[in-house]
Structures are given as C-alpha cells and as structure tokens.
C-alpha cells in the first residue's frame, strides 16, 4: 500500500469537517443584509471559514505521506456529507439523481482505493 491508511483517514476527516464549513457559510449567507458590516458581525460566516481552515490542517497532514492521485479524489466524499446536511439542516429535497450521483462517488472512491497498491 503506497498511501498509508492514516493519510486516507486524515483526508476523509478533513472532508467531514469541511462539510460543516459549508453548512455555517450557508446559514451565515442567509442572514446577510445590505450593509457591509453584516459580513464582519456574522459569527456563522466566521465559523464557516474557521471550519474550512481546520479542515485544511487535516488535509495537509494527510498529504504529507502518500499519493496525491489517491488522496485528492477522496475529498469528493465531502459531497456526501454536504448532501446529508442540506437535507437535515436546510430541508433541501434529495432527488433520485443526487442519490445516483452519491452512489457513483462512493463507488469511485472504493475503486480508486483498489488501485492503491
């Protein structure tokens, strides 16, 4: 195995944390007003950016060892979390197409992992 499991887990953890960044950015963006100050006083936007930075720390630790061609595509697992949270927190509809897209992403990650030798 050229890319250690620890690296893969770190990158997957990064994708998980990053998906919460999107949740907070979305929640914050919905509360913006016309005044520019509303951007700075918006703690949700701040939390979103913070979570993205936190996610980057784990991604960075993850890519220190192993192959980029294996690790980078694994970030796409973040789409799965994002879809889950948009359903849970924002009540967005989940269409059959989205579920098919998710299935393809998970399948793609599993196939990719087979190539990690």
């Amino acid at each position, binding site marked *: 195995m050229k890319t250690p499991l620890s690296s893969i887990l770190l990158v997957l953890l990064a994708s998980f944390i990053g998906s919460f960044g999107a949740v907070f950015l979305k929640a914050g963006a919905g509360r913006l007003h*016309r*005044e520019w100050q509303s951007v700075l006083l918006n703690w949700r936007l701040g939390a979103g950016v913070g979570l993205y930075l936190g996610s980057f720390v784990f991604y960075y630790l993850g890519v220190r060892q192993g*192959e980029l061609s294996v690790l*980078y595509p694994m970030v796409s697992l973040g789409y799965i979390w994002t879809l889950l949270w948009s359903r849970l927190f924002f009540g967005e509809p989940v269409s*059959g197409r989205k579920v098919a*897209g998710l299935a393809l*992403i*998970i399948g793609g990650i599993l196939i990719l992992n087979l*190539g990690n030798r």
Partner: protein
Amino acid sequence: MNDSPTTTERVSFRFSHRQSIGLVFLCTLFGVVAQFLIKTSANSLTVITLETLLTNWALWLGLAMYGISTGLLILALRDGELSLLYPVISLTYVWVTILSVLVFHESINVFKLTGITVICLGVALLGKGDSRS
C-alpha cells in the same frame, strides 16, 4: 445606505452562462496549482514547528491559490446553473491526476483511472440533480 431605487441599479451585475463556465474552468486551473504547491510543501516539511510553517512559502502561496479558486467558484455559482458547472468542476480531478503522474511520478493503473472517472460522473450527476429547469 438605504434602500433607494438608485442603489439597486449598480448591485445587479450578472455573468452569462458562458462566462460562468469560463470562471469555473479558471477555478479548476487555480485549484490544481494550489494542489501542486500544497503537496510540494507537505513533502518538504519533515518537522512541523511554528518556524518551518511560517517560512514555508509554498504552503502560503498554495493557500492563496486555494482562496482565489474558491472565490472564482463562488462568483460562478452565483449566476450559473449547477448542472452546467459541476461537470466542469470535476475537471480538477483530471488535472490533479495528470499532475500526480507527470510531476510527482506517481503510478497510474486501471483502478485509479476508473475510480476517478466514476467520481467525475458522480459529481456531474449531483449537479444535474439540482437543475432548476
């Protein structure tokens, strides 16, 4: 600033479909440059101390490219249809694979190629599932 009719005039600049797709394409190029810098920096970092992190120019330049890439994506997502933009976004996976092989001399095999293709299809389908037509 109050809600006078004159303020609404200058707010509404919109990108066309073609321009939005161009922005996302540019976003994928900045994205792969960011990945190159971040991986290079991560490889070179043997010990992590405050000093080695702060003096790591590739890391900071990579983060800046990452920021530009995200900014372009947000701009494009504001006006463009997700179903058109998501397939373009998945181009980043293609660029990163080419980068991994050519620059970092990583191995490529049929599993990796199939996996990345399937992920790209999945991302494209996700965008399609959100089309507002």
